[in-house]
């Protein structure tokens, strides 16, 4: 358990598991920021810094995968994915190569570098790719365990990590499993499905709500694809209203993934999505952007109250 950015936990997990000779790590010249450098310092023979050349990097990773390696192709999500949709589709998703794409610096929580560095469409388009699974851990413990799970999982995966420090949510008794959500806190009336940094933000909102006597349920959805359909149905059915929370555009992300499940299962509930409202943000601190663009604990708390009115 540790308060730390998920990218830090990723770097640590790579080192923890690095003795496995199948693991190779690639980076696009930002390994100090993504923390893949930790692996590179310890296992230089299996670390390939490809420079600022994401297209080459992800295809090199695909080639390495065909020789039985487990490549972690790492970079800032904006460029790791934004630059390489075609390469990821053909050489990784369609070819079904065992490549783990690790995108750090996602969402508005990136902050001051501005919209060209704030990746808000990555969940949408990796979810849309056949063969691709999508995982976003919420804290240190979950990131460590998810990295290990991705080593064992055979197939293409997108691993979505964040820049800022997040609070510890899970202790070592937590067992991460690909495709499984987890009830973080049990309440009544309303359920929040949150992913990534929004789990922390939702917990803050819930503390505020508790002062007003409102106790809601929080579910962590760390596997965005395949989503834990059974848990979504169970939780939505047993609560009066549903809120989703993600640091991502409201198109194609967690909100849509949950909404699809509910529509398919014909479960009708008041439904609000806490997400970026199909717009580019601006510069500012992550906290300022969360406040201005509707992602902060204040907005979550208000959405809860509005839903229960």
């Amino acid at each position, binding site marked *: 358990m540790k308060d730390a950015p998920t990218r830090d936990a990723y770097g640590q997990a790579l080192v923890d598991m690095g003795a496995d*000779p199948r693991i*190779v790590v690639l980076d696009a010249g930002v390994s100090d920021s993504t923390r893949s450098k930790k692996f590179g310092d310890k296992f230089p*023979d*299996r670390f*390939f810094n*490809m*420079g600022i*050349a994401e*297209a*080459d*990097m992800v*295809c*090199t*990773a*695909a*080639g*390495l*995968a*065909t*020789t*039985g*390696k487990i*490549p972690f192709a790492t970079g800032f999500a904006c460029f790791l994915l934004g630059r390489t949709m*075609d*390469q990821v*589709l*053909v*050489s990784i998703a*369609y*070819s*079904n*190569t065992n490549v783990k794409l690790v995108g750090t610096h996602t969402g508005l929580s990136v902050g001051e570098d501005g919209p060209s560095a704030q990746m808000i469409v990555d969940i949408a388009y990796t979810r849309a790719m056949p063969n691709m699974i999508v995982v976003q851990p919420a804290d240190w413990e979950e990131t460590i365990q998810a990295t290990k799970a991705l080593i064992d999982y055979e197939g293409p995966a997108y691993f979505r990590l964040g820049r800022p420090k997040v609070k510890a949510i899970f202790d070592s008794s937590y067992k991460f499993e690909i495709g499984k959500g987890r009830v973080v806190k049990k309440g009544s009336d309303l359920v929040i499905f949150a992913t990534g940094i929004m789990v922390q933000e939702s917990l803050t909102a819930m503390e505020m709500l508790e002062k007003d006597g409102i106790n809601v349920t929080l579910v962590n959805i760390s596997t965005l694809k395949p989503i834990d359909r059974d848990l979504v149905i169970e939780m939505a059915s047993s609560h009066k209203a549903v809120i989703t929370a993600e640091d991502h555009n409201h198109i194609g992300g967690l909100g849509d993934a949950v909404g699809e499940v509910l529509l398919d299962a014909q479960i009708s509930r008041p439904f609000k999505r806490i997400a970026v409202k199909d717009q580019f943000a601006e510069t500012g601190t992550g906290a300022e952007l969360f406040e201005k663009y509707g992602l902060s604990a204040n907005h979550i708390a208000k959405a809860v109250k509005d839903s229960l009115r």
Partner: protein
Amino acid sequence: MNETHLSTPDIQELEKTALELRRLALKIIFQAGSGHPGGSFSAADLMTALFFGGILKYDSTNPKDPERDRFLLSKGHASGIYYSVLARAGFISESDLDSYRKINSPRFLSGHGHPKTPGIEIASGSLGQGLSVAHGIALGTKLDGFDSKTYVILGDGELHEGQIWEAAMSADKFKSNNLIAIVDYNKVAQDNITKDLKDLEPLEDKWNAFNWDVHRIDGHNMEAIMKVLQLPLHPEKPRVIIADTIKGKGVSFMEGKTAWHGVAPSAEDYEKAIKELQ
């Protein structure tokens, strides 16, 4: 590994094989009613030498042997010749070719290759990716301590893709001398001649500037092809073989024509072409 592929090649025999493979490629493109004859014919002699001249180390009964040499066709649209070669090499059967570009193809003989087909390493169809993938394989086999080589055929139009030059820089950085790129320099792309799209020249200088071991040959001269493919690896540089070729080589009315990039012949043209390919 298939030792029979390592016997001394007979140039005339290889030329005969290349001709047979051209006929087969055209036949399956004709049967499919679509495909890419021009780029299949320009690459035919190069692929014949690789697969049947004892260059490529492979065992078609064990296509995933980790110590095999790898072959990638980055210009994946030349699948007509690729599947014909794979059939002759025994990865698939000649009757499998009847399902080329057809729905429910049991061996997944799609318009562009995919690893569901035995002998194919990676999907193609989007140009510019194959050199990076091949380089990843070269890095992987080196990590495993194998002396495997990785060969990749690139189209000339494909060299317009910036990613090719990213990969060229990478292979130099990692001294990947087990990577051999072959440029099928047929001078013709889809809607125009390559030079008029964007001139690649001076092409040798470009690869030299990226610190590759550069060779230039006539890509239809079997003796020259074999000679360059038999060279020992450079001690540290990746190798590029710029093979001057002719799009549609072997059929007079197809040669050098953009029109024959991506169309199947009519019945009449097919008969005429087959007569020329004897």
